[in-house]
């Protein structure tokens, strides 16, 4: 089950590994993605800290860690094919985090709450 942040990341938790991506809404707002700067494996971040960076033709944005922890995997395909995010944002993960506090997942927005949030923007 995907949960969301106010900064438009999504996360799926499997055990203590969170798979992280960006919402369809965020990708649509950014437009055609041209570049994703991925973190190093082993880099750690607290929840809501910048962990990666994304650029489109006309915009740029930080990607924030939806959960605290350590980066254990990055989607290297995005280095050569960042446009796959435009094709299917919800199926295209960006990085995986080994979370230090799985309880943080409960504080994220569920899909209904996220949809209400973006409708208000």
């Amino acid at each position: 089950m995907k949960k969301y942040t106010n900064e438009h990341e999504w996360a799926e938790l499997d055990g203590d590994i969170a798979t992280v991506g960006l919402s369809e809404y965020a990708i649509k707002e950014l437009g055609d993605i041209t570049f994703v700067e991925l973190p190093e494996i082993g880099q750690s971040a607290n929840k809501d800290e910048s962990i990666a960076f994304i650029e489109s033709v006309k915009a740029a944005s930080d990607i924030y860690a939806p959960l605290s922890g350590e980066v254990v995997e990055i989607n290297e395909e995005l280095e050569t094919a960042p446009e796959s995010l435009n094709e299917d944002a919800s199926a295209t993960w960006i990085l995986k985090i080994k979370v230090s506090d799985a309880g943080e997942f409960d504080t994220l927005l569920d899909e209904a709450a996220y949809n209400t949030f973006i409708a208000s923007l």
Partner: protein
Amino acid sequence: MEELKRTALFDKHKELNARNVGFCGWEMPVSYTGVIKEHYACRNEAALFDISHMGEFFYEGDIANSGINNACTTDFVKLPIGKCKYGFLLNEKGGVIDDLIVYKLDDARLMFVVNAARIDVDFEQIKSHIKSGKFENRSNEVSKIDIQGPKSKELLQKLALFDLGELKFFGFKQSGLLNAPAIISRTGYTGELGYELYVSNDTAPKLWDKLIELGATPAGLGARDVLRLEKGYSLYGHELNEETTPAEAGIDMFVQYDSHDFTGKEALLKQKEQGVSKKIIAFTTNSKRSPRDGFEIYQNGEKIGVVTSGTYSPSVGSGIGLGFVDMNLYDKEANLEIKSERGSMPIYRAKLPFLK
């Protein structure tokens, strides 16, 4: 916040699910299906742009003697009827109040096409030169639709009442489209074969639909900005402002120095003698990273300038940009880099246009 103005095509953009953005006080479409797709539609086929936010002024009177010919860097007396010319409205210091295109409609009539954000300033500035004749701001009555791309001619020909082949670059004709008056101008801001169409607000939605039906792809301001930057064209508020002269922006070849007097001419001539203290440079990132407006330009660890425009260019396959450098600090040979809060990246000098 002031409410954003809408063009006569606003409902059309809504039907097309455009993503809108506030731009110079107008709610304008930034893209419809995606900037890159729209960009390629213009480079390879025909793209359609709503540019109705731009301003149109009309003058009728004695062009040679009313004082209007001293308003701009373009000599309207010399300008042939049926031709338009790109030029500048300058302040006394030679700084650019606006860049504009002026159309010679006939011996006694001119049309000025100006940037949306500068309509009020420009109108007053031009008016201050005029001692006789009628000068009107009809920006709210005129819609402007640009059709640009290699297929624009054959597509528009289906609606045009004359052979579009008659129009040379910067030529135009006062004619008709869809049984309504239209000015068809062989000009544009994309570097492609293309036309700028001036019609009434009533005609605009019908013309928009018809051109889409004939095969044109709607494109937003996002693609327009990429297209103009690939060709190295200046954008007011970025490369041009009241503190910058045409020479500093690298485009004083559009200034008609020899024929007429105009406000700012003295300052420009003086600068020609003394040289410029800042200048636009063009560069690429040679990577997928894009420079952005406001990034700082560094050389040998010292800040020497600032980026004025930047984007990713699908045609070049790299980030591209323009920026001002301080000529007292700039070293023509040394490596360049740009810095933002995310760190620095190298940039590489390029010749304009980025895309030949």
